[in-house]
């Protein structure tokens, strides 16, 4: 489709293949490029005002066949057959249902077996494919970049723009390579990679960039693990995060409901193969991470960049050079009720949340289940397990994972965003401390006054057993644990 003569990065190739109209660069004014959007994902929170805008301007939704909606942010994860108790949540869900019916949008509602978190549903239906442009009124749309798609979170005005035109006006971005070479140690996951990346470049370090995760450690990851990394690109401030498609990607997509078949599959794979960053292409910035050196990572503060190795300690304000960082640290310690110097592993938690668009897929549930199987939950901890989609829940039940969680003493819930954000009944109480596999540890994110430590599913599982932030390597062998009990 495009001139492949000039060396290009993956992101530049996908961008170039979607230009409807190139922005003019005359008179010192640079117009944005107009890009075509291949897939538009909708949910109940950021769409009502966009639908309303269409109605007010008497505009049509241009491509219902490139649009799909699901209910996730407001939905309860218990008693989903009953009406939603909170009237404002119910209104938002009912508004989505009315809007989708009116504009002909496919919707997977609560109770439907394809319902779930929007970023889990797209990939599992095979709708997310390499080289696509994917947008959604949700910042964690970056998740879909794991397939080599250019996937971006957008605001509601842009949602309306895509509904009306199937395009977006976008300013060109810069590219940053995140090179992760080496082999992860046992107990270290893709969640630890991305938390380490964010701690390294900061919550603003990716601003204006599309990140491309590269290197042997990335190639070795499954699609579920790649999605975890790309999901949190936004926490580094990046516009998007991408991973070049390869055989792992094709194997994941093949046979899914909306995957190409027959001759179209061959044509698709041939095109996908062309998307890799050219050897001679250069990035505007590069970051190197040594996978062999990584340890389980955990946050201590109130933004995702405030993290340390689990074997480390809570930092002190004076550990930071920048005055702004010192103030942020001081404020975070106060909010988190932590004392500088405390070993992270001595911090007790009240709740463990396994879920969210970051870590709620089969691999996440399997990894946690393997750790807790045959062990006992700490009495002081409640654990909530929320599959990312109704289909993940069904698959997990088919493997018996639900029984492992329930026997352990965890709550096995229905699919949704749940405790990742304080919009549905699953919330922390003020002062409650949570080890969470989600993506944001902002003040009040999981409920007013709640305190969040971001962790991997493995750390979440080990923490539920010991009651303090822990990694699987801190656990005694199962036989010993049984004798002690």
């Amino acid at each position, binding site marked *: 489709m495009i001139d492949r003569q000039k060396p290009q990065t993956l992101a530049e190739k996908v961008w170039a293949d979607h230009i409807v109209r190139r922005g003019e660069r005359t008179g010192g004014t*640079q117009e944005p490029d*107009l890009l075509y959007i291949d897939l538009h994902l909708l949910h109940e929170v950021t769409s009502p005002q966009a639908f309303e805008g269409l109605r007010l301007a008497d505009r049509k939704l241009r491509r219902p066949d490139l649009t799909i909606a699901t209910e996730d942010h407001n939905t309860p994860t218990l008693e989903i057959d009953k009406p939603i108790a909170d009237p404002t949540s119910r209104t938002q869900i009912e508004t989505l249902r009315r809007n989708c019916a009116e504009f002909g949008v496919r919707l997977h509602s609560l109770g439907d077996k394809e319902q779930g978190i929007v970023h889990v549903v797209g990939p599992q239906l095979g709708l997310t494919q390499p080289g696509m442009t994917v947008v959604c009124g*949700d910042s964690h749309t970056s998740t879909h970049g794991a397939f080599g798609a250019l996937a971006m979170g957008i*605001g509601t005005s842009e949602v309306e723009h895509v509904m009306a035109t199937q395009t977006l006006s976008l300013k060109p971005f810069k590219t940053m390579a995140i090179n992760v070479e080496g082999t992860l140690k046992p107990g270290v996951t893709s969640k630890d990679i991305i938390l380490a990346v964010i701690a390294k470049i900061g919550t603003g370090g990716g601003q204006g960039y599309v990140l491309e995760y590269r290197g042997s450690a990335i190639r070795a990851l499954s699609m579920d693990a790649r999605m975890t990394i790309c999901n949190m690109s936004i926490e580094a401030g990046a516009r998007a995060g991408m991973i070049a498609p390869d055989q792992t990607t094709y194997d994941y997509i093949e046979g899914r409901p909306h995957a190409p078949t027959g001759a179209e599959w061959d*044509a698709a794979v041939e095109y996908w193969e062309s998307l890799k960053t050219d050897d001679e292409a250069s990035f505007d910035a590069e970051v190197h991470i040594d996978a062999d050196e990584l340890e389980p990572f955990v946050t201590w503060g109130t933004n995702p960049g405030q993290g340390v190795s689990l074997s480390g300690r809570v930092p002190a304000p004076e550990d930071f050079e920048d005055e702004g960082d010192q103030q942020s640290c001081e404020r975070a310690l106060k909010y988190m009720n932590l004392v500088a110097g405390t070993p992270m592993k001595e911090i007790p938690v009240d709740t463990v949340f396994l879920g969210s668009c970051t870590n709620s897929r089969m691999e996440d549930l399997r990894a946690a289940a393997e750790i807790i199987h045959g062990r006992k939950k700490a009495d002081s901890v409640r654990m909530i397990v929320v599959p990312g989609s109704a289909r993940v829940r069904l698959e997990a039940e088919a493997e018996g994972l639900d029984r492992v969680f329930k026997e352990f003493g965890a709550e096995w819930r229905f699919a949704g965003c749940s405790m990742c954000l304080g919009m549905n009944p699953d919330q922390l109480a003020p002062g409650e401390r949570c080890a969470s596999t989600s993506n944001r540890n902002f003040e009040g994110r999981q409920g007013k006054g709640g305190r969040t430590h971001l962790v991997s599913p493995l750390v979440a599982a080990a923490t539920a057993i010991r009651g303090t932030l822990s990694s699987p390597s801190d656990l005694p062998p199962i036989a010993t644990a049984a004798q002690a009990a």
Partner: protein
Amino acid sequence: MEKIIAHSGIGVPLPQNNIDTDQIIPAVYLKRVTRTGFEDALFAAWRRDENFVLNQEPYRNGSVLVAGPDFGTGSSREHAVWALKDYGFKAVISSRFADIFRGNAGKQGLVAAQVAQPDVELLWKELENHPGTEITVDLENRLVSCGAISVPFEIDDYTRWRLMEGLDDIGLTLQQESDIEAYERTRQGFKPKTLPART
């Protein structure tokens, strides 16, 4: 959209880094289905503290927010911009904005003026020494002035032009409909469609 050439209003100092969108508007306020009426939601958690800047005179009536770097990080919620606008803010000044927030602001007629951090600190000092001082954000000349201070700000050319003309993005794009149709004819056949639904 209303045209903005320049705006003058009381400056509100908020010298804090990383003011994320969960602080600007907590998720619980995102349940509304309207586009207006979010003024009560702005900084809702912080406003419970009587010492918070917006609970004090003369800042209560401010319309130009001067914040620390990395303003608007986190969620894509455009509600953050709506809440700022509904409260009465016309401009936010910071040395660094999160990309999505900046984009949303431009689309809703809220000026996101990027000012170098040393200049932001000058503005904070001026507002601290003379509470209630007005700040002028002049899009035409890309200047922020406050008392005797006058400093440049950055905003991309296209957003500036759209703000000054008060242009609606969708209307602009629909003028290119023939380009969109032409592009659609070249799309690869293997690209997925959501309809008819397959599960």
